[in-house]
């Protein structure tokens, strides 16, 4: 009898607490759909002359002179050699006779817009770069560097076959997926490094402005152009390379490529660019 009373009292107390919880924690609600709408509205309000699809051109969408430079670059794009390498790598069978095409839906063609996705088996975000290395390892091949060269070539080819398709990242109704999304969002806005910069400091607060000689790209659509040829790098770089470089530039020690934080960041940043076309591979100053 005493224990029944204790349980009833505890239940009443718990229900009482829960009744007050939603109002108190309204600001903590994870709502990717609302985030996506607010994110896109922020940028279209900030740059009213731009159409939504223009944001994928990064700094080249920010002013007329740069846009002219980009149009000229696209006549002989600097990523072209990498694209050809990527196609050759993608279509060359592994030693066991299988190929990358066997690891992906639709034989890996025109699917870039669906990456990253949330894998409900291991409860984590899977990026295209990670899926490519998993494919290699499943077929007895050594993984390749996440940062440049071969990985950039492969993702360049896969992005090229998906050009124009709207980014289409799904967040399943799974608390782990929502948590991954939220952690990615938190990473995006968190200041780090001795310079005390977050991703948002440059790519939300200051797009279109210069940092030294560079024009900062808007965060909206920033991953739709990946991988990119950067003149500053004198070569191609992947999304992993972009994240690592951003961390280093703010004097933060970068994390390992494809660490959980970077995967979650890519998930968030891709989701809020849903609907914008894939434009990769890209070229940047």
């Amino acid at each position, binding site marked *: 009898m005493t224990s029944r009373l204790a349980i009833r009292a505890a239940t009443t107390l718990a229900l009482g607490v829960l009744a007050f919880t939603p109002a108190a924690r309204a*600001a903590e609600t994870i709502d990717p759909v609302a*985030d996506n709408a*607010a*994110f896109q509205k*922020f940028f279209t309000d900030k740059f009213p002359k731009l159409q939504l699809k223009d944001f994928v051109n990064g700094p080249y969408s920010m002013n007329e002179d740069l846009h002219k430079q980009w149009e000229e670059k696209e006549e002989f794009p600097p990523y072209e050699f990498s694209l050809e390498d990527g196609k050759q790598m993608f279509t060359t069978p592994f030693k066991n006779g299988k190929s990358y095409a066997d690891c992906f839906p639709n034989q890996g063609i025109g699917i870039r817009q669906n990456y990253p996705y949330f894998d409900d088996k291991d409860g984590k975000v899977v990026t295209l770069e990670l899926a490519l290395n998993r494919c290699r390892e499943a077929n007895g091949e050594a993984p390749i560097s996440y940062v440049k060269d071969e990985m950039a070539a492969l993702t360049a080819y896969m992005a090229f076959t998906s050009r124009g398709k709207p980014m289409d990242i799904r967040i399943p109704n799974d608390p782990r997926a929502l948590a991954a999304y939220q952690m990615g*969002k*938190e990473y995006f*806005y*968190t*200041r*780090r*490094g*001795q310079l*005390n910069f*977050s991703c*948002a*400091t440059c790519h*939300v*607060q200051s797009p279109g402005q210069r940092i030294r000689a560079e024009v900062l790209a808007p965060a909206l659509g920033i991953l739709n152009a990946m991988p990119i040829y950067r003149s500053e790098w004198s070569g191609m770089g992947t999304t992993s390379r972009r994240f690592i470089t951003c961390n*280093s530039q703010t*004097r*933060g*020690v970068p*994390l390992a490529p494809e660490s959980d*934080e970077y995967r979650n960041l890519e998930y968030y940043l891709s989701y809020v660019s849903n609907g914008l076309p894939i434009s990769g591979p890209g070229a940047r100053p």
Partner: protein
Amino acid sequence: MRATAIVAALLIANASAAFAASEADYQAAYAAAEAANKEAGTLRNQWTTTASTLAASKKAGDAGDFDTAVAQAKEAEALAKASIFQATSEKERWKDMEIH
């Protein structure tokens, strides 16, 4: 006059001895800086400048320049503590920058 000069010389010598860092001072300062940087690592928020200042401390320590080694280690510790403060305060502050 001679006595005053001797006392002054002794005071100066003692003062120098008190401020010159020893190898033990360097090792203690380096260990404290390294521990703080390790804590920043568990928060996934180390700074490149902490690493380079720690490296400078070790280089000076290896060369027997313990004054410089201690000074660099103390600076590295301060940097590491700042990175810990940043990581801790940003757990809530990131929301201030969020687009709504």
